[in-house]
């Protein structure tokens, strides 16, 4: 399967919708998806969710600390001063779960991929690098008024699935 733009579109739509619906934030996408090296530098708070079915892959949201704090504050209505606050991390993780869940449901409905999501995880720390070995991925940079966001989608290439 060539990893077509069709597979990325549901993630873009879902990011826009969930950030608006849950955190009342507009996300502006800068350019188009571009191939990513196998090393992605964390902006400060990163959540990853992986999936498997007829194909395998992962979805990652990478947020600057100020953006992660603003998202948690807008969603929960509570002020937070540290990204290590478990509620901040849980909020980002749950947001990722909802975004990926929406996108995967769309992909399953259109392409019958039979994808299932593993639970998300989230981390924060200085100078962290994340690597998804062997699976090609693509990223798109985004901007909000509270800071930068990067979205990364990875799909294993396979000849088993047609139509996407």
């Amino acid at each position, binding site marked *: 399967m060539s990893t077509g733009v069709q597979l990325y579109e549901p993630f873009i739509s879902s990011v826009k919708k969930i950030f608006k619906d849950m955190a009342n934030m507009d996300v502006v996408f800068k350019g188009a998806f571009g191939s990513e090296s196998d090393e992605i530098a964390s902006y400060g708070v990163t959540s990853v969710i992986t999936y*498997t079915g007829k194909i395998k892959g992962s979805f990652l949201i990478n947020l600057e600390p100020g953006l992660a704090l603003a998202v948690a504050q807008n969603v929960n209505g509570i002020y937070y001063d540290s990204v290590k606050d478990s509620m901040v991390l849980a909020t980002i993780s749950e947001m990722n779960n909802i975004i990926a869940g929406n996108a995967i449901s769309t992909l399953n409905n259109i392409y019958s991929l039979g994808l299932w999501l593993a639970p998300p995880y989230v981390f924060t720390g*200085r100078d962290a690098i994340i*690597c998804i070995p062997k699976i090609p991925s693509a990223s798109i940079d985004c901007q909000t008024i509270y800071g930068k966001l990067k979205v990364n989608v990875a799909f294993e290439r396979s000849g088993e699935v047609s139509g996407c």
Partner: protein
Amino acid sequence: MDVKYIAPFMDSLVKVLNDFGISDVKRGKILMKESMNVDMDITSVIGIIGDIRGNIAYSLSADTARHIISAMMMGAPVPEINAIGRSAIGELSNMITGAASSQFSTTGIKANITPPSIVFGKDIYFVISSLILLLLP
């Protein structure tokens, strides 16, 4: 959490490392946690779906990783952890978790694994999932 969900991972870890000639694996005490502060250099996380659902994270120091990668590459020196080394750590996670999934299937529990992701960096603060988190040093 029932021990039947933990033992296959420990058994598989020991067996897979043994297959690469590493036999001095010592097990610590299991802790139950909601979040995890990792002071090691590398953490590989792999998801499980099916009758059971969760994530398993393998954390190791850079020295331990180099030692294991070298063992996986028939003793070749590993001065730094490059793309091949990262791939080897991912493959190790796949092998351990895949073997554990196979053990689950013998007891009627269906479990499938998702691709591993590897986080590099010290002093990383993780929330692995909103589910129960067990730490096995």
